[in-house]
């Protein structure tokens, strides 16, 4: 018997949060929750893993820093050395303070932009992407929980009704 997915609509975030906790407690498998705004504590209730985007951000920052060091050394020391501000030493070490703002900026630039791009890729978002949410009301004032079950669908529907679901349907 293949698994079926039940979609339950809620119209209150507190009720939704409670229902999700009940579903988890009853060992149901929550596939996805759609909400029009971030619901406090929902990610913990659904049991999402902590994001690792902070780690990628750190790595990108380090890459940006290294890139800036390489770039400034190449531009200002190797490729086209110039006497700026009476400091014609053409050595990276002695001119380093002048490069620090650029190092800082590129660290931030790399960390921020690559982190956003990573986030888009990880969330499977790109231009002209069609929305994935099954019901337009989840972008307005309703919440939807998708629960998959392998056995008794009626029992699950009953369970959701008791926990405040306004509408229940089977995913096509």
């Amino acid at each position, binding site marked *: 018997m293949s698994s079926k997915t039940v979609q339950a609509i809620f119209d209150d975030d507190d009720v939704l949060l409670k229902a999700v906790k009940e579903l988890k407690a009853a060992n149901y498998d929550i596939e996805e929750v759609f909400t029009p705004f971030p619901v406090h504590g929902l990610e913990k209730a659904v049991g999402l893993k902590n994001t690792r985007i*902070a780690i990628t951000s*750190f790595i990108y920052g380090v890459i940006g820093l290294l890139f800036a060091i390489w770039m400034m050394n190449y531009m200002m020391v190797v490729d086209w050395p110039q006497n700026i*501000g*009476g*400091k014609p030493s053409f050595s990276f070490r002695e001119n380093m*303070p*002048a490069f*620090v*703002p650029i190092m800082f900026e590129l660290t931030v630039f790399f960390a921020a932009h690559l982190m956003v791009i990573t986030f888009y890729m990880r969330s499977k978002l790109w231009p002209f992407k069609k929305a994935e949410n099954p019901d337009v009301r989840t972008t307005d004032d309703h919440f939807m929980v998708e629960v998959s079950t392998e056995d008794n669908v009626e029992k699950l529907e009953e369970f959701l009704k008791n926990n405040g679901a306004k509408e229940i349907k089977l995913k096509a």
Partner: protein
Amino acid sequence: MYTFSNKLKISAIIFMVLGALGIGYGFLTTPSNVDQVKEMMQHENTHENHSVAENTHVEGSNVENHENAESNETATEDAHFIHAFHSLQNRPYAAVFIAMFFFFMLALGTLAFYAIQYASQAGWSIVLFRVMEGITAYLLPGSLFILAFLILMAANGHYYYVWMNPDLYNIHSEHYDKILMGKSWWLNVPFWMIRTFIYLLGWNFYRYYSKKNSLAQDTATDLAPYKRNFKASVFFLIFFIVTESLMSWDWLMSLTPHWQSSLFGWYVFSTMFVSGITVIAMVTIYLRAKGFLPKVNDSHLHDLAKFMFGFSIFWTYLWFSQFMLIWYANMPEETAYFMPRLLGTYQLLFIGMLIPNFIFPILVLMNSDYKRIPWFIITTGIIILLGHYVDVFVIISPATVGNHWIIGIPEIASVLFFLGLFIYVVFSALAKQSLEVKNNPFLKESEHYHY
């Protein structure tokens, strides 16, 4: 209710006694005339190949040594010895002043943080108010020590502050200094003393008034004390940011009276602020570990650690900004400040303090989870405080002790003395009333604070 444990009290007293002995030793071993210095330095030179004599050319307070550039060799040598003599005589004073100012600024930074909590109506920090009030109890004794020290420096004719030498303002004297003459409308002893009085009075008054209101709120039936504190904090912050800047010019920047930096006030503020927050975090962790702060949760620690992290970066930003602009413009009258620090004998400290003050906090406190681990915060806190002691040392020493610096008995003893006093005053103050804040309008938010 917290009681000042005997163990801590005894260690504080031992610190003070040891410190006082060490400070006394520092003053007693100072050479009392130039001949002793000559003897000492000739003794050293046989070991160190003139390094001392050469280095005296690179000097932060170059008010006195512009005269010796073209004179003959023996005169130059004599000037060196006189200079070295002044430096050596300054050393115990500088050692005491550095430690005195360092612990004073912990209390002052905490007071500023406390006022910001009130003025911004912050909700998270209410349960920490008694801790902050305990730390700022050191403000009064700290102020009195500073005041006594500064009065002594103005009165004893030792010219710890070189600009106090009346010869500099005497047009017939060979030491006459046109630049300082131009500054003398601001930098003269009476006005300087009056300003010092005003700063200390203002800060201590706010400390007294806000503490009184904060305690009154515990038993009040309305919010009147809280509202008074809010208003007082707003005015205090306006007063503080101006007087803090003036204070840093008067007490610290005027040690090198020719030099000026418009960023200096902020720079001192950042050192003060990050050290103050670090002390709040450390005292909080200590009291919480003993079970006296049941309402302080991990989120409060997390926030304090975030401030430690953030203001460490802020300090680095100012450290670098002040340096880079001067380095880039490369104007002699400005670079004089950085000669002993960047190129002279303070290089190791000046560059090296980036490790405890920047690299260490940024790497250790970056991870969110580590900000909740008490021993992590304590360890980082100790390193940050040591780093900022070095920062104060590098602000003060080049202009007073010059190239003959060493962190020896007078320096360590001064730190011990003021550390002992700080611990004694702060923990006695903490033991005086309940550590639990009551009736503050944001108390609920603070108790349930969750990050």
